[in-house]
């Protein structure tokens, strides 16, 4: 389990006249304040996401579109395009961040990320099969296939790379191997079926651009269920961080917790991937930042991840809309370009004994 250097600072005794900084109550108060701050940040990013886009409009027009809808072009853009896009980004971002945090805790692996572990490739392979062989065209249809693919791959990768003698390298390699296998399948289907290729290449880059309220409604129940499971697993995951034997000694039910956590990861990643395409590195980066703020307690990590991940995803989406105006850079590319260096920095910073 990763403990960032910053988190040890809470143990320092504070000045004598204030309550000691290390006391649990003070730490909790500090974390709660941080969470409020994060929520403010999230609100700011949401405003930016609604207000900034290919079509430039004044803040007043955005306001008008939101609250006094009268059917002008600007109103339609705000209501039909930007609001659904922002809402979907919020949900998908939170899902990816929480899934990444649960995955890193479950596998005790600081480099775990749904994208790197092949879950996205599983979802992609299942979706392309659905498009090509069964003629699926709607997001609702994608969801089921993506879920099935994500579930199959997460179980497989975890079984091969995640048990007992697991190391980050094993798990990453298992993810790479599964990804290679499934990419072979995906490209075989794409190359024999040109219609599927044309649909897949747009889905595969990872984008929020095609969001609509219908999509949001379709994916909401899945994401809600996944989030509930993840939060239910938070306490036992804390125990698992101490090692299997200690966790058992503390009364955590290992198998039940693992199943719960896997189900949460599958629901969250599979649904988010179905709705936006594969997005890498969000689930990797945010939990690391969060652990630096909160320390290793999952009960704080999860809410923080749920708030800060959409900040990253929506922020990346806004950046993608601004840098190549009037065209757009898809959000999956922006997160990969931001996340790759972070990943490499993490790899470089860690001592090899831990890897």
């Amino acid at each position, binding site marked *: 389990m990763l403990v960032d250097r910053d988190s040890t600072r809470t143990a320092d005794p504070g000045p004598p006249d204030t309550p000691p900084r290390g006391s649990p109550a003070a730490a909790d108060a500090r974390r709660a304040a941080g969470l409020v701050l994060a929520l403010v940040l999230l609100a700011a990013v949401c405003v930016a996401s609604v207000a900034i886009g290919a079509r430039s409009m004044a803040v007043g027009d955005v306001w008008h579109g939101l609250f006094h809808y009268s059917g002008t072009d600007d109103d339609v853009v705000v209501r039909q395009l930007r609001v659904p896009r922002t809402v979907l980004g919020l949900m998908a971002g939170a899902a990816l961040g929480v899934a990444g945090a649960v995955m890193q805790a479950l596998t005790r692996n600081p*480099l775990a990320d749904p*994208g*790197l572990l092949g879950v996205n490739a599983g979802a992609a392979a299942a979706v392309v099969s659905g498009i090509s062989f069964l003629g699926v065209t709607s997001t609702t249809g994608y969801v089921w296939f993506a879920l099935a693919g994500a579930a199959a791959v997460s179980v497989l990768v975890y079984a*091969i*790379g995640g048990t007992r*003698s697991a*190391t*980050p*390298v*094993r798990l*990453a*390699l*298992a993810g*790479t*191997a*599964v*990804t*290679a*296998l*499934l*990419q*072979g*399948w995906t*490209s*075989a289907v*794409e*190359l*024999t079926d*040109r219609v599927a*290729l*044309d649909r897949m*290449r*747009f889905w*595969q*880059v*990872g984008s929020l651009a095609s969001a609509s309220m219908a999509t949001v409604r379709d994916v909401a129940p899945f994401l809600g269920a996944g989030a509930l499971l993840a939060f239910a697993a938070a306490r036992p995951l804390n125990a698992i961080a101490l090692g299997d034997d200690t966790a058992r000694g503390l009364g955590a039910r290992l198998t039940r917790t693992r199943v719960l956590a896997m189900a949460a990861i599958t629901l969250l990643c599979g649904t988010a991937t179905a709705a936006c395409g594969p997005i*890498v*590195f969000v689930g990797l980066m945010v939990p690391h930042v969060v652990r630096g703020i909160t320390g290793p307690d999952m009960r704080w990590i999860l809410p923080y991840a749920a708030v800060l991940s959409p900040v990253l995803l929506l922020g990346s989406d806004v950046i993608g809309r601004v840098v190549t105006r009037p065209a757009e*850079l*898809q959000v*999956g*590319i922006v*997160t*990969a*370009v931001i*996340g*790759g260096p972070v*990943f*490499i920095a993490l*790899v*470089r910073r860690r001592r*090899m004994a831990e*890897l």
Partner: protein
Amino acid sequence: MSPALPRRAASGTSAPRRARPGVLRRGGLSLAVERRSLVVCAVLLVTALAFSIVLIGTGDYRIAPLDVLRSLTGHGNPGQDFVVRQLRLPRVVVALLVGASLGMAGAAFQTVARNPLGSPDVIGFGQGSAAGALVVIVLLKGPAWQVSLGAVAGGLLTGLAVYLLAWKNGVHGYRLVLVGIGGSAVLSAVNSYLLVRADFVDAARAVVWITGSLDGRDWSQVRPLLAADLVLMPLLLGHGRALRITEMGDDAAHALGVRVERTRLVAVLAAVLLTAAATAAAGPIAFIALTAPQLARRLTRSPGVALAPAALMGAALLVVADWAAQRTFPSGQVPVGVATGVLGGGYLLWLLVTERRAGRI
């Protein structure tokens, strides 16, 4: 002897079941020859050639293996001669050369990295050359030779960048692998973006190219590849003994009279150039460089990765993979890179499962 020992032999440095070498003596010179390696090499060569003949006969117009042989030796009928010599022979020759180049390059990389995972695929060469090719196809709209050039440049740049990023008081094998995985993830996002920007015809062409394909290869692809192989392969084989001694560690190798740094530099340069030449001819074909040396080592039961068996294994693997791809999808739309990707992914999984029992990786 504990039952774990043979498996350790398959994955590491000691070799309890090592084949006994025969010794050739002539005058003052003597040469140790491992009989098992020789037999394995011969079997691999025969397999590669036999499948080449079957492969030449496979396609829309089927030709029996005996007729193929007749055409090749100059006794066939004119119609079959044209199909065999002008259309299908160059493709098969490219396959053999590309497979051999990748296999030998992989063996050199793995010896230098002292790690079965030190292959160009793992350090992002494949995604890098795909990115290079896509830039040429989508942004510059270049012809085929520029695509090859772009792929080689992209692969080399990526490999260099990954190597430098993984450098921190020397390159640790696992850090290299992980940095490579991260770099590949970034590049695959860039590749998806370029695919989206492309119009549909370019996108279809690009997908075939970046998967690695042998379709439509003719003698103009064979010549530069053959020239590169004729220079680089003997060079590498000449350094083979020194290279194997470096596996004993730098100090021991120094003491045995090997110039370690020079040997390593020559090996890495030659391996990079071999990979580049193969990529220019057929695109980034996945995983041959990773799997061929390891499979060959398991067959020969040699303690380290050997160059010649790896090259032969690579050639055999690629020809078999191409045959399998053509048989599974007779319309010829699925390039060989798909087959090697599936093969290599499966092999890597198998490696992870079996090596776990031995407590490695």
